């Protein structure tokens, strides 16, 4: 018979599930596993409850293991049914519902209970702790219902430690007036010294919280529900909710009743085995070597030792040195080790009052024993690593306080990659998920070559994301140039955590056709985006769904909304299209007449071989366009992220060196491409011979005519960063030129990021990739060409003609006018 031993875990929290993960990683077939959880939900990241309360994350965001994880690993989850008794003699546990389950191994991961101060009123409805999602829901409900008379609600948080301050921050963000009552004179006195505590207090006060230190609670008052808190000095603070966050105690009742050895916590050995060899315990509920821990980091080490012990590998847990970070957005606080001073302790302190920075490193016998950082915590991990390793810092002592970059000798220009390279393998990278540098490196070695792959592989930076930069630096360190491309994949803007590529993929996959749908589907952080993401989204939609997307004029830059170029005085410039740079006396007459009629203050020949009329008022735009239309001219799109001009030389028709009809080909090319919206402006030129009078070698798409056909050039740019084109290929016929041009533009339209010119795009993806798509893959080229022409069937409509005919006329009109001395002071609807 092959019946596997049964492992029963009491506690579906961070410690219990992490221990199970560690066991599965070592031997997935060793146990049948049942997990009991008191809360009716899957395993989530308890330390991320603060961002949930603050409204920065949802419950879904902080789930560590979803239902599929339990199913995939054959784990039975009994949630919402707490275990109430353990019978060690019969090796069974009984749950509240009456169910009894036998075990071979039992693991206690019961965590800790919030400590409730024994004052009158502590049991009133409205007194909550800050331990699980139900507590968060109660706090959110209190914030929502406000005060008794419909005014802003008031909350009191008892306890100015880590948890209390995070609760206060969240409630404050939820619109409550918050008072923090702290017994000690310094906030977070277990983690912070007086100076840092003072800075923190002032910062919180400036955010509108009331902080009462040295304040002792006498009574929670209220008739049937909480109405306020009375202090021992007689002061009374009104409140509709009171959060008790004075501390936690290991939850040991079950263990005690089962007769296990219990001190302050459940006593365990170095492999987390209790006084009963078949019973293990892990996490906040245990006492190891006289210590109990209330922070998340020690838990990771405990789980590793526990799992190793179960597979007979010796890896004793030796206790943990802990560090602390406060998860209150905009306030950076870090502390680690011992900062109480004492015999032989030397302080190194840096203060920068203007920047609100305080750093203190405590050194004993050339070794760091503690660190407190406020305002700039970038070097926290480095100090903590030196502390844990007990490195001799005598050589870098002078520069120690200025941080790793400086102390390592690089000064301000020190390379962040070198900085991560110098970290030891046990250095903690991700505090939320307890991931060390060694684990991240192993994950990268195992094939995770992108940030997303690392996040899903080992969970580093997958929770609060504050270590994303470190993880990216590790990727760059491990992969070298191979990672260079990936590092450009930053989020589109501060409104989202998705990259341009993520967003474009989602638009196609989820069939999103308007901006609000994209923002909803991808959980935009801002209500209606910003001036950076909105134009990009509008472009991505029109590119993905030609003829189907919903255009948002308010997400266009002014030039594209007004179909003219805004100038520094608020007037516009107007450029009619001149196909291939060729014009006629009639067109010139019409342009001259328009310049006179609308008082253009300057007529300028542009670099793109056409004429630009400056100083046109926005009210006059529809009429000047009507006049130019009447002479057969259309918009030149000189204002758009669009096809601008096709510049030509005269070619074989006139020039003694010309090899082909460059002017004629230029006109055909412009007639095919005009009106096309692109990620950025796009310029084309056709030169009739390699003398290249049309400067085709600095255009996005250049054509140089030669005797045998046409050289096609791509990725040139005459802007700030001069870049000559790369040769794409040589073709023989005009039709081929047009087909390759259409395919290249479509590839650029579909794959470049908004506001990328072709030059940086090609540098990023590589010329070989473009050649492969456009030259080598004939079928793919035909598909791209067809998609381009499909898009053009919707885009080749002169926007000027529509405006001249009266469309969107309010864009060109004032809403009203005020004339102080006229009989009618206000003229409404004035044109």
């Amino acid at each position, binding site marked *: 018979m092959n019946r596997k031993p049964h492992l029963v875990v009491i506690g579906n929290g961070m410690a219990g599930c992490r221990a199970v993960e560690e066991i599965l990683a070592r031997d997935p077939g060793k146990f049948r596993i049942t997990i009991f959880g008191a809360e009716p939900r899957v395993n989530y990241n308890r330390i991320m409850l603060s961002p949930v309360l603050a409204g920065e994350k949802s419950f879904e965001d902080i789930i560590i293991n979803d239902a599929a994880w339990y199913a995939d690993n054959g784990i039975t989850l009994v949630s919402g049914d707490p275990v109430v008794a353990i019978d060690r003699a019969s090796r069974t546990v009984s749950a509240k519902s009456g169910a009894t389950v036998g075990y071979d191994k039992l693991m206690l991961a019961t965590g800790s209970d919030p400590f409730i101060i024994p004052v009158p009123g502590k049991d009133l409805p409205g007194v909550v702790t800050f331990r699980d999602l139900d507590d968060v829901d109660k706090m959110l409900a209190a914030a929502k219902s406000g005060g008794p008379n419909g005014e802003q609600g008031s909350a009191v948080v008892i306890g100015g430690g880590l948890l209390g301050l995070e609760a206060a921050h969240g409630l404050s963000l939820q619109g409550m007036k918050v008072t923090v009552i702290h017994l000690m004179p310094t906030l977070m006195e277990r983690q912070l010294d007086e100076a840092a505590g003072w800075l923190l207090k002032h910062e919180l006060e400036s955010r509108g919280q009331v902080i009462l230190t040295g304040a002792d609670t006498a009574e929670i008052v209220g008739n049937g529900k909480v109405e306020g808190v009375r202090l021992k000095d007689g002061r009374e603070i009104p409140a509709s909710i009171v959060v008790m966050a004075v501390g936690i105690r290991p939850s040991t009742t079950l263990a005690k009743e089962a007769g296990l050895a219990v001190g302050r916590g459940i006593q365990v050995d170095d492999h987390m085995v209790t006084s009963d060899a078949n019973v293990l315990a892990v996490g906040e509920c245990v006492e190891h070597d006289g210590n109990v821990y209330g922070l998340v980091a020690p838990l990771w080490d405990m789980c590793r030792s526990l799992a190793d012990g179960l597979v007979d590998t010796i890896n004793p847990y030796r206790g943990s040195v802990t560090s602390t970070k406060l998860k209150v957005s905009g306030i950076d606080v870090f502390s680690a080790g011992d900062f109480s001073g004492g015999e032989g302790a030397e302080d190194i302190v840096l203060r920068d009052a203007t920047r609100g920075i305080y750093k203190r490193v405590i050194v004993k016998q050339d070794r760091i024993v503690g660190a407190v950082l406020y305002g700039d915590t970038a070097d926290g991990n480095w100090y903590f690593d030196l502390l844990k390793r007990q490195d001799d810092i005598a050589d870098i002592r002078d520069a120690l306080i200025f941080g790793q970059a400086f102390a390592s000798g690089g000064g301000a220009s020190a390379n962040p990659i070198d900085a991560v390279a110098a970290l030891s393998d046990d250095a903690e990278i991700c505090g939320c998920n307890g991931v060390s540098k060694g684990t991240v490196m192993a994950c990268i070695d195992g094939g995770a070559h992108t940030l997303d792959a690392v996040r899903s592989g080992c969970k580093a930076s997958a929770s609060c994301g504050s270590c994303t930069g470190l993880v990216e630096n590790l990727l760059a360190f491990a992969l070298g140039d191979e990672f260079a491309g990936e590092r450009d994949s930053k989020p589109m803007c501060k409104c989202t955590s998705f990259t341009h590529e993520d967003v474009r993929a989602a638009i196609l996959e989820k069939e999103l056709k308007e901006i609000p749908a994209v923002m909803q589907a991808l959980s935009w952080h*801002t*209500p*209606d*985006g*910003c*001036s950076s993401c*909105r*134009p990009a989204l509008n472009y991505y939609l029109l590119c993905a769904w030609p003829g189907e997307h919903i255009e948002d*004029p*308010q*997400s266009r*830059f*002014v*030039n594209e*909304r*007004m179909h003219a170029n*805004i100038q*520094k005085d*608020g007037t516009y410039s107007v450029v009619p299209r001149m196909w291939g740079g060729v014009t006629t006396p009639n067109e010139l007459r019409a342009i001259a007449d328009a310049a006179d009629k609308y008082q253009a203050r300057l007529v300028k020949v542009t670099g793109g071989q056409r004429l630009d009329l400056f100083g046109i008022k926005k009210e006059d735009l529809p009429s000047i366009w009507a006049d130019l239309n009447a002479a057969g001219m259309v918009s030149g799109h000189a204002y758009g992220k669009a096809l601008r001009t096709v510049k030509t030389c005269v070619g074989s028709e006139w020039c003694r060196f010309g090899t082909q009809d460059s002017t004629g080909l230029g006109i055909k090319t412009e007639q095919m491409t005009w009106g096309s919206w692109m990620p950025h402006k796009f310029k084309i030129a056709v030169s009739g011979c390699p003398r290249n009078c049309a400067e085709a070698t600095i255009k996005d798409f250049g054509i140089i005519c030669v005797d045998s056909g046409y050289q096609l050039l791509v990725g040139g740019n005459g802007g700030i960063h001069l870049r000559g084109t790369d040769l794409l290929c040589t073709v023989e016929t005009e039709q081929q030129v047009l087909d390759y041009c259409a395919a290249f533009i479509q590839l650029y339209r579909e794959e470049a990021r908004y506001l990328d010119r072709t030059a940086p795009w090609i540098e990023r993806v590589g010329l070989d990739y473009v050649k492969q798509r456009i030259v080598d893959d004939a079928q793919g080229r035909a598909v791209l060409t067809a998609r381009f022409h499909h898009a053009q069937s919707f885009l080749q409509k002169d926007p000027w003609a529509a405006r001249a005919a009266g469309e969107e006329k*309010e*864009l060109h*009109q*004032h*809403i*009203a*006018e*005020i*004339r*102080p*001395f*006229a009989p009618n*002071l*206000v003229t*409404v*609807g004035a044109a």
Partner: protein
Amino acid sequence: MVTAEWLDIGPVDQLPVMGARTLPVQGGEEIAIFHTANGDVYALINKCPHRQGPLSQGIVHDTSVTCPLHNWSISLVTGEALGEDKGCVPVIPVKVEGGRIFISRKEALQGQR
């Protein structure tokens, strides 16, 4: 009415959502009337504190507008430049009643010479 404290400048549906329109004041400073996504109406002098760009032509997002000339973001509520930039443009009191926009006469005429 010349003596009214609030001047009626037209129906609110004449303003594009997440957009703006202009209100010239003869002999004075042109005013930009903004309409946010949630329907609120704000008014600022139509001049960016940076290089006097026409704010009415900028992209409106949340309660701010980004100037079309150099991308300064200006709060529609306070007229202050947001982020690293420093500067302020006068705010003109404005209200919506019965679907019509009213602008404060005193401030609207203040810039008038």
